[in-house]
């Protein structure tokens, strides 16, 4: 290092400085975009969360009033609960579905590429079109899903109301969300599966391990880094979900599927209360940040252990 700094280039700039500048110039385009469109708004949002502002009249500093206000509001607490409910099941089921599909499509099958593309398709399909179709499929009378359930022998008065009922609206959006997520995360699992050395399985087979034992003792643990990545991405995505809910239920019936992101939207564009909006966003941000940090900590331990 010390040696490097002393080495002068022809133009008289130290190598170290040159390296730094080159490095900076590489990240600069991305950083400018990040700063302008993400960092500044985030900082601005943080400042706003301490203000009372309707977007036009001068801001008024109110310290933590906005936070006190939202935690005293039934709708906010409710949305928080809904978000946790939604995220918990979406993450769990998406991970299970993605892993199962990856295991299935990691075998030598005919048309394997077709199946992989077909399952990946929901992830790239337009959410607007997709939610219209799902909404029609979820129709209480005559919808495809309930018709199928009826054929399977579910009594007519036991059929779920899906998006038209308070109890079933959330499961309905979770199903669509899982369906949409699973393809992308399947690809991640697939890539990781192919990285597991075959010698491990060969050795296991020699020792007489069953397929299930191989999965539990080899496949699952070997996928640990992917589990962490998938879990983290899914958690962050679930907490931020907005489009799907907005298009499928608009948060209804009543407030049955109102997530935090929907609450934030309503506060911003119906109540024009940017202070409260930002405070709620900050809570959302803190939750996601905490999960991410915890995640990294645990992951580090695990990776050290491995």
């Amino acid at each position, binding site marked *: 290092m010390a040696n490097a700094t002393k080495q002068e280039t022809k133009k008289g700039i130290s190598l170290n400085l040159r390296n*730094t500048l080159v490095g900076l110039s590489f990240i600069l385009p991305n950083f400018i975009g990040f*700063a302008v469109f993400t*960092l500044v708004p985030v900082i601005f949002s943080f400042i706003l969360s301490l203000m009372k502002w309707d977007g036009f009249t*001068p801001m008024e500093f109110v310290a933590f009033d906005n936070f006190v206000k939202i935690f005293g509001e039934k709708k906010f607490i409710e949305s928080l609960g809904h978000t946790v409910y939604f995220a918990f099941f979406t993450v769990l089921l998406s991970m299970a579905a993605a892993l199962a599909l990856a295991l299935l499509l990691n075998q030598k099958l005919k048309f394997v590429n077709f199946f992989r593309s077909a399952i990946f398709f929901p992830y790239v399909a337009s959410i607007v079109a997709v939610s219209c179709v799902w909404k029609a499929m979820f129709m209480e009378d005559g919808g495809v899903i309930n018709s199928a359930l009826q054929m399977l022998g579910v009594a007519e008065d036991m059929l779920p109301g899906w998006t038209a009922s308070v109890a079933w609206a959330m499961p309905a959006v979770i199903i669509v969300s899982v369906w949409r997520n699973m393809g992308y995360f399947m690809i991640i699992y697939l890539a990781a599966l192919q990285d597991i050395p075959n010698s491990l399985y060969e050795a296991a087979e020699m020792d007489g391990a069953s397929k299930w034992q191989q999965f539990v003792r080899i496949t699952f643990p070997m996928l640990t880094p992917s589990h962490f990545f998938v879990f983290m991405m899914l958690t962050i995505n679930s907490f931020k979900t907005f489009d799907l809910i907005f298009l499928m239920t608009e948060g209804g019936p009543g*407030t049955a599927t109102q997530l935090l992101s929907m609450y934030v939207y309503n506060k911003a564009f119906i*109540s024009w209360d940017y202070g409260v909006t930002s405070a709620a966003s900050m809570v959302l941000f803190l939750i996601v940040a905490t999960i991410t940090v915890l995640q990294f900590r645990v992951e580090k331990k695990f990776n050290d252990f491995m």
Partner: protein
Amino acid sequence: MKIKRIAALGMSGLMAASVLTACGGSTSSSSATTSSGSTGSESTASESTASESTASGEQVSLKVSLWDATSNPADLAAIEAFEAANPDIKVDLIDIPSTDYNTKLNTMLNGGSQLDVYFIKQADMTKSFYDKGQLLDLTPYIEESGVDMAAYNGTADGFAFDGKQYGLPVRTDFYVLYYNKDLFDAKGLEYPSNDMTWTEFEELAGKLSGDGNYGALMHTWQAMAWNWAIQDGQHSIMDYETGYDFAKTSYDMLVRMQENGYIQDYGQLKSGNIHYSGAFAQGNVAMMPMGTWFIGTMKAKVDSGEADFNWGVATIPHPEGVETGYTVGASTPLGINPATKVADAAWRFVEFMTGAEGAAVYAKEGYIPARADETILETVASNEGMPEGLAEALQTKNITPDRPIVDKVGDVDQILAEQHSMIMLGECTVDEGLAEITNQVKDLLA
């Protein structure tokens, strides 16, 4: 090491600078607009008048924002007529999709974009624009031009705050009853009269239901219960002190009609994304309470062959003990941005659009202008393809605004929408729903 530190310092400096510029930008724009707000509006107006008169002969460009202009021939026709009558002004339209309009308009006004005149999509938002100082006081202009305020039939009153006028209504839409003549003929029933109570409406719907037909279509809006609750003009959706007992009758009717199969199921309409215009055009719905804006749409559907039946329009049914001609509606006001540099041209635009000339153009296109007198209604009804007796059906005695122009009406609306779905899906009873609304609105307003 040192260099890295300097680089880091530079980066953080850059970040800080960008933060500062962002904040600086917004404060300077807000201070600029406050100075040209309601207090300083008169001086701004006189200044711009002066600057304009010096620049006479040159064409003034006027930035006007509205929504879905391309699918709304009436607005474009009126603007064309304005340009023809005022060759020195060129209207520069900012056409915004209707679903994004409010958000986009707010961004433009808050962000200080150049915008001179704007249509307000929801009349109740006028108050918030006024509160934010985003509307120019029109009173001096109205006095100078001698605008006859009585011609607006009271529809302009909601846009006056503290005795000053901040907006003028262009169009006024109100609720009427559309009906399918063929379905009435098939049952040998008389067409709905222009003087009918809601009870009679319900009975009639019952007679017309069955065999795959529905007596009526009640769209999924909460307006389908709340409008009839406030129709008498005695209450508004903000009156939580009453426990909203005034909405019970109309809700009971709506729920009863749904249970009896007189109307399509709310859940079906909602999950099927069924739009009322398509549902009515299908031809299996006998009656539909809907706004006058639907007249033009319906005419187009008949012209295109999508709707293949004879249709009619009657006055909206009224509650027991309320005169016929009492209806619910909303006006579309036009306002001037106080930040405009061409206030004089902006006023001439507003005066034309909201005045007799603009009214005539709108009526010709089949829309109901805010200045609607006998002749105007005749013009509307005499358009090609309009059903018989339209002029009589359009007679009104009183138009209660569907949403009062006060603070927080958007939040109350949101609460109503949420609980409306709960009641209509049978997740709670009418009484429970109204009690919940009362609690939530009380928390919001009290």
